[in-house]
């Protein structure tokens, strides 16, 4: 009896979701829920399987993944570079930080009309939106991380003859890394949110496109597959960020 309880304990958090899915399935079968509003879980699973089999899902997924990666790469790359620059140089910070803070206060999504005017509804428009959104969390956290590096450690390293790049590599960058990774983790979550919006506005491929297209044809089951896929991708991105933290911050007891 006690043994059975010990086995069941880790499953307990999943009891409520499981019950909900069962209730959902049951009410759909009895006819309480119209499949126009919410298709039964089984139908969603079948739809997902169909999309996988036809290769359609993979094609859309590939496009979305590429967009997320490219947008994140550009935005986070610039965020890191400017964060490092402004964190290390007072002069650069005086010159640039106020401007960047002003731009930061504009929500990325408010730029959509302007972005469409500039880039049309092209791939570049989507990448621009993603990059702008991802830029700020990485920039802010890098900037703060560099500024917050223990001055005692920097003084010690200088007194041991570390200068320039060596000082940067051995002391400043690793000292700022916990903060930089917070920015990266936040951005990895944000990139999916922005991607959904960008792909919903206008696209010829991608999960957002697949979902919007399915809505036109009232394929509620495919819409749900798309939504669940976003949830899974977001979770995957977060796990990726945790793996990064575990690897780069393994010296830090807080991340073990």
């Amino acid at each position, binding site marked *: 009896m006690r043994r059975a309880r010990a086995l069941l304990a880790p499953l307990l958090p999943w009891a409520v979701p499981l019950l909900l899915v069962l209730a959902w399935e049951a009410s759909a079968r009895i006819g309480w829920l119209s499949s126009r509003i919410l298709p039964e879980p089984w139908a969603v699973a079948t739809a997902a399987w169909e999309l996988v089999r036809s290769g359609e899902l993979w094609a859309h997924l590939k496009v979305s993944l590429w967009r997320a990666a490219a947008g994140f790469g550009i935005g986070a790359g610039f965020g890191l570079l400017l964060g490092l620059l402004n964190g290390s140089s007072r002069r650069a910070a005086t010159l640039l930080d106020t401007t960047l803070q002003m731009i930061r206060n504009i929500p990325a999504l408010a730029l959509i009309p302007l972005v469409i005017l500039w880039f049309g509804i092209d791939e570049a428009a989507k990448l621009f939106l993603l990059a702008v959104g991802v830029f700020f969390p990485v920039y802010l956290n890098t900037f703060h991380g560099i500024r917050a590096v223990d001055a*005692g*450690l920097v*003084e*010690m*390293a200088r*007194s*041991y*003859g*570390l200068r320039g790049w060596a000082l940067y590599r*051995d*002391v400043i960058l*690793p*000292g700022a*890394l916990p903060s930089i990774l917070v920015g990266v983790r936040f951005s990895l979550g944000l990139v999916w949110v922005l991607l959904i919006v960008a792909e919903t506005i206008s696209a010829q491929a991608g999960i957002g496109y697949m979902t919007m297209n399915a809505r036109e044809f009232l394929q509620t089951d495919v819409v749900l597959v798309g939504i669940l896929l976003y949830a899974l991708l977001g979770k995957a991105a977060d796990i990726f960020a945790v793996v990064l933290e575990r690897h780069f911050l393994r*010296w*830090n*007891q807080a991340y073990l």
Partner: protein
Amino acid sequence: MHVNRIEATRVSEAANESPRGAHLVLRGLGKQYAGRSVLERIDLKIKPGEFVAVVGRSGCGKSTLLRAIAGLEQPDSGQVKIGGGGAKPEVRMMFQDARLLPWKTVLDNVALGLPDGKERARAALDSVGLLARAGEWPAVLSGGQRQRVALARALVHQPQLLLLDEPLGALDALTRIEMQQLIESLWIARGFTAVLVTHDVQEAVVLADRILLIENGRLALDLPVGLARPRERGSANFGAIEKQVLEHVLDMHHTLSAA
């Protein structure tokens, strides 16, 4: 812990003209913070291989003095001269906190600033008895062990002048005594000049050839300690010197509060 004790007499003889220790001269050293004078015209000569302890109440300027010698602070007046056998004397500082880089292993911390100094770093770690912990992160070490790693990091550079800024202040009493013995034995074996800032008068009497007392930025006492090493805390002579320094510290305090 490996302790290489050498006859104390032989060492003090050798220390007088040892090329392994740098001599240190301060002339009219002064430093101000926001108009308040922290150090006032400090004149001081320290012989090669001498172990000097600087004591005083907190805020008296003893740490500033050490940082000025290390070149971490620019004095407002006067000068610091450090001379030794070599062209540019090697000066190393041990801080109050160990200041180990948490993202580098113990060995890499000791080898900091030495691109191919892994072997020498191992030897230095061995001399403080921590070779077995070479591959670990600093976070898993105790406070005393961290300070031993910091000591090894300083020693790997073969310093001619070692500056110690209350490095044992945060350690428990037993670990502190152990560290004092370790520092003394390494000083005897290597013959560097040492300047130790401490608020612990007993520590100063255990380790120093000479005790300097700083009050309000001025040198208030310069007392030679003629006890043979290793010193016994319980002995009458030891107690007499400790009492003398303590009374001086307290005396100064009385005159100040009366004024």
